[in-house]
């Protein structure tokens, strides 16, 4: 207690390429604080719309959601924006054309639900989850004036969002 955090930008990992360790309490506290700082809104990917349908596969596979014997499985898909704000007060700017778009699919299978999330940016911005709160803070609009906080992360994201359409290729 009372000791300053030495490094809040690099999480503990099991080796150079290993997974992030749960024993990194600095990471856990940072992520927990980030998750709870805007109640009841989600921080990112809050505004979206979803539809329910099915996933159908034509090839045999090991996974249940794509098994050949049961070719059709119920699924739900949700498309959303990332940094846009869901509150009605910001309705006029809540759907940004240059915002990152999210795409989440939930497969309902006999072996349990299987979630697959993604977004439409070709290369992700950061390598460490510990940097994610700082990146989002730089990109998210401030609640009192609606401008992004700025910083290197914001310039990085805006570079993607403001890039020329002919040079900006999605994946």
């Amino acid at each position, binding site marked *: 207690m009372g000791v300053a955090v030495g490094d809040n930008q690099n999480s503990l990992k099991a080796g150079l390429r290993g997974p992030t360790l749960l024993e990194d309490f600095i990471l856990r506290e940072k992520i927990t604080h980030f998750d709870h700082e805007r109640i009841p809104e989600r921080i990112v990917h809050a505004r979206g719309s979803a539809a*329910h349908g099915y996933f159908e596969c034509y090839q045999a596979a090991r996974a249940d959601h794509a098994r050949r014997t049961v070719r059709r499985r119920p699924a739900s898909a949700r498309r959303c924006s990332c940094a846009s704000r869901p509150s009605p007060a910001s309705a006029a700017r809540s759907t940004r054309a240059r915002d990152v778009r999210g795409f989440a699919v939930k497969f309902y299978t006999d072996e349990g639900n299987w979630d697959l999330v993604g977004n439409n940016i070709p290369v992700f911005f950061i390598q460490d989850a510990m940097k994610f709160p700082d990146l989002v803070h730089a990109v998210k609009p401030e609640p009192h*004036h609606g*401008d992004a906080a700025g910083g290197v992360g914001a310039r990085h994201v805006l570079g993607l969002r403001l890039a020329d359409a002919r040079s900006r290729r999605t994946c």
Partner: protein
Amino acid sequence: MPGVDAHADVGDVRPRHPAQLPDDAGLRRAHLPARQRATASRVLSSSTGSRSPAPTRWSGTRRSRSRGADPDFHRRDLWEAIEAGAYPEWELGLQIFTEEEADRFSFDILDATKIVPEELVPVRAGRQDGARPQPGQLLRRRPSRSRSARRTWSRASTSATIRCWPGASTPTSTRRSRGSAGRTSTRSRSTRRSRRCTTTSATACIARRSRAAGSPTSRTRSAAAARSRPACAGFVSFPQPVKEAQGARQAREVRRPLHPGAAVLQSQTPDREERTSSAHSASS
């Protein structure tokens, strides 16, 4: 001020002047093909127990609206498309390779800031035979359309691929919809789009195949050049030897001699610099 500046959704930290805003037409073109990439690689396991890393991709064609003039555009667009029977569909593509192949890649597949080039590992749409689906095969058994408004999202798909879809429209049609204050006539427009679907799908397939060399998933402009490139020696975290670490290790060896067994083991284990240099020589 929120709700006042109609152009503010494009860039927040830039000086707000309409002349500095990007071209709106290009904006729409950039977002028409709403392709999505999963942020984490998945691992597929076969019945024999073999494991294959498989980065995943979704490609669909729900359109996006620019500038935020209509904040509820995406939700209403999806709703109206479903109500009109133009069910949106997406295809799931996989890049499947073995862990041994992944070890030979020059990048770390677990790095979220890296991509697997399509020339290195082609995107397969759920097929196990390794052949990339041809547009004609995918469109051959195109299902009929249902008019049931209660059915949602997706029509029967004989293949897990394709469905470049009715909900997608050309920039021309988007411009028409914007002219009517964001409201589109649902059934007639959807029907027209669905009749265009075959041509649109085939065009999209060809476009995707030829577009690979210029996309961020490509590392070269030429697919043939990428295929002819010799295999990499694998990912090395620190390609350049760290002199400080090398000096510290030598000092530690001098200062604290290991027990005899460990000394023998150490002599048999190649140093980091040796492994790095061998990797460089193999890759070059």
